[in-house]
């Protein structure tokens, strides 16, 4: 009985098992059938689509452009799409900024640099259902070529830079496909701070932007900022060359620190070590001794200061000027301030669109300056600060908050965002600064300020080898290391002065931005070495 029982139980068990297995099999079979059905359906649809699609030559993914052919096809730039081009059939290459499908239509916003235009693909004579679907499924930021007819619109398209026309697409080909997931959304990256907070919309924080700089640089704001930056460089060069300056190139790997040794990068240089230049200071001065009279230099400058502030970078672009003068270093100040004024005027004149674009995201008051530029003496500046209740000694350096406050006081009194502070205390300046003949506590040195922040530091330099040696010893500098520099003044050196401007700072302060990383394309600071 027990045996039978056991057997019976075994049978039951088997039966149960087989039942389970059967069910499983059945399910699997069903699955396979479903899958096959689905596949068949998709295939059928595909076939259907292929068969029905009269427009299948009008869209698709282009083979990689490997320069196989020279197409005789003119590509019109998005910014040139104006009502004058109405009714013309044209080709455009642009990115897909946004896309929105709506039944038988698909709206695309096409973007090239900071310009955008609306494009429309609708099922009709030129486009099939499948083509519209294809367009709607394109990923954002993909680069496409479209052939389209320019049409005037009745109502302005507020969301685009080209507001008076739209494109009726007839052909659309993908040149380069973007991955579907973007690390940041361009709309989020241009949203003014605070705006969209109520709707819970995101803004992108700075580190995310900088980590994905290539995408962040595509935003209208970034495009405008760096076009303006290029403008500053060009205006700087044009103005100085008109004034008879010569552009020079100086080495960046140097044997001695020019302004104190604490904040230089040391690099290993074969069997010895070298430094990365803090400024082309020594070389531009040597050029003056070599009779170049007026020189300037645009190039990288390195500072190993471990300061993580809104206005410090470890590598930035220096615009350096050095110039021989006749009798008074104010000749040089006047020349530099005039150059700056020419730059400000040029920007205001030529880059109005860019300035407005940046203002949309980062509102600021227009930049104001006087002609001729306001020049204050350090003592006057200190007196203004004291009158405002700041306690500081005659020979103290300006702290950053005091610098900013002085900027506000000057703006209030003289209504200018740009001024020169002259006659700094000798103690706070580098060893090659010429002392003031009337008061040995002061020096013939000056800083220039934009919106209360320093953009240029300069001075009359000592062109007498004897005095230069004394000052270097006073600063405890190893004379051996700067021998070549001092020696260059032994064979007749003209009196000269100059200064160095930080390009990123000028750009930042002109636009009223709050962080220097916004005006450095690939910023370098103590915590960032990539991208």
């Amino acid at each position: 009985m027990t045996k039978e029982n056991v057997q019976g139980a075994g049978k039951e068990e088997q039966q149960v098992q087989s039942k389970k297995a059967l069910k499983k099999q059945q399910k699997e079979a069903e699955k396979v059938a479903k899958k096959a059905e689905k596949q068949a359906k998709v295939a059928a649809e595909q076939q259907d689509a292929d068969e029905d699609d009269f427009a299948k030559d009008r869209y698709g993914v282009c083979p990689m452009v490997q320069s196989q052919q020279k197409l005789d096809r003119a590509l019109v730039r998005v910014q040139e799409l104006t009502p004058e081009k109405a009714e013309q059939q044209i080709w455009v290459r642009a990115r897909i900024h946004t896309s929105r499908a709506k039944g038988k239509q698909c709206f695309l916003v096409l973007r090239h640099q900071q310009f955008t235009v609306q494009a429309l693909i609708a099922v009709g004579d030129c486009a099939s259902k499948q083509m519209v679907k294809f367009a709607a499924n394109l990923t954002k930021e993909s680069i496409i070529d479209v052939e389209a007819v320019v049409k005037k619109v009745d109502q302005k398209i507020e969301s685009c830079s080209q507001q008076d026309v739209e494109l009726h697409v007839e052909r659309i080909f993908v040149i380069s496909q973007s991955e579907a997931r973007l690390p940041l959304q361009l709309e989020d990256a241009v949203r003014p701070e605070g705006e969209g907070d109520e709707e819970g919309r995101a803004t992108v924080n700075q580190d995310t932007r900088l980590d994905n700089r290539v995408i962040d640089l595509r935003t209208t704001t970034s495009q405008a900022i760096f076009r303006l930056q290029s403008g500053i460089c060009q205006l700087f060069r044009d103005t100085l060359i008109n004034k008879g300056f010569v552009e020079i190139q100086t080495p960046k790997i140097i044997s001695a620190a020019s302004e104190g040794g604490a904040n230089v990068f040391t690099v290993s240089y074969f069997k010895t070590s070298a430094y990365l230049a803090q400024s082309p200071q020594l070389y531009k001065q040597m050029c003056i001794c070599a009779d170049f009279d007026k020189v300037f230099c645009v190039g990288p400058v390195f500072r190993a200061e471990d300061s993580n502030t809104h206005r410090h970078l470890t590598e930035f672009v220096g615009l350096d000027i050095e110039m021989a003068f006749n009798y008074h270093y104010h000749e040089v100040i006047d020349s530099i301030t005039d150059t700056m004024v020419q730059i400000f005027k040029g920007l205001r004149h030529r880059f109005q669109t860019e300035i407005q674009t940046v203002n949309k995201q980062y509102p600021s008051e227009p930049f104001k300056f006087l002609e001729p530029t306001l020049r204050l003496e350090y003592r006057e500046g200190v007196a203004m600060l004291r009158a405002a209740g700041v306690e500081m000694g005659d020979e103290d350096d300006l702290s950053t908050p005091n610098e900013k406050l002085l900027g506000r006081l000057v703006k209030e009194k003289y209504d200018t965002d740009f001024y020169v502070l002259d006659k700094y205390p000798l103690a706070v300046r580098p060893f090659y600064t010429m002392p003031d003949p009337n008061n040995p506590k002061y020096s013939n040195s000056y800083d220039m300020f934009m919106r209360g922040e320093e953009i240029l530091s300069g001075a009359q330099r000592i062109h007498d080898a004897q005095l230069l040696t004394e000052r270097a010893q006073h600063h405890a500098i190893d004379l051996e290391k700067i021998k070549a520099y001092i020696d260059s003044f032994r064979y007749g050196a003209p009196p000269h002065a100059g200064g160095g401007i930080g390009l990123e700072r000028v750009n930042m302060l002109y636009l009223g931005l709050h962080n220097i990383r916004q005006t450095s394309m690939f910023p370098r600071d103590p915590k960032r070495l990539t991208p």
Partner: protein
Amino acid sequence: MALRELSSLEKCLGLKKPNKYSTQGDKKVPVLQNINGPSLVGLVTIATHLVHEAKRAELLGASAEQRAVVQQWLEYRITRLDSYSKDELKLILKELNQYLEDKVYVAGNVFTLADILLYYGIHHIIVDLAIQEKEHYLNVTRWFDHIQHYPGVRHHLPPVVVLRNRVYPSGHY
């Protein structure tokens, strides 16, 4: 602190003979030994007494309503201004700034004891404000500057520089 304040108040009220004070407890509450009666305890109590002694009762308010307002601000000084936590500072300045928007003095259009004691009590706060903050709490600064220049009030306290013109008009920076 309170003792220096009381001696300044005496001078301010024109009392010739200085009183002797002691303090009581951890919070150093001032005590005035009164020759003719019981001793008086507490800043506001003693201050009120001094006002009466100087026969300057108008400093406590001319009407019943004004007297009530003065008392209210004297109390505010003791309860709020003398014992605030760090995070409350901005709130205090903000509420005072709003209150003073349409007033010359704390109790309206006349100078009272409340102005004197509020000035003594808020001085250490104002002295530490940056120019931008002083401009932000414009009404407080205006009132403060007015009181510190009121004849005979300032005494033991250093003057605070107040700019008459706005330096930060746009609000940012």
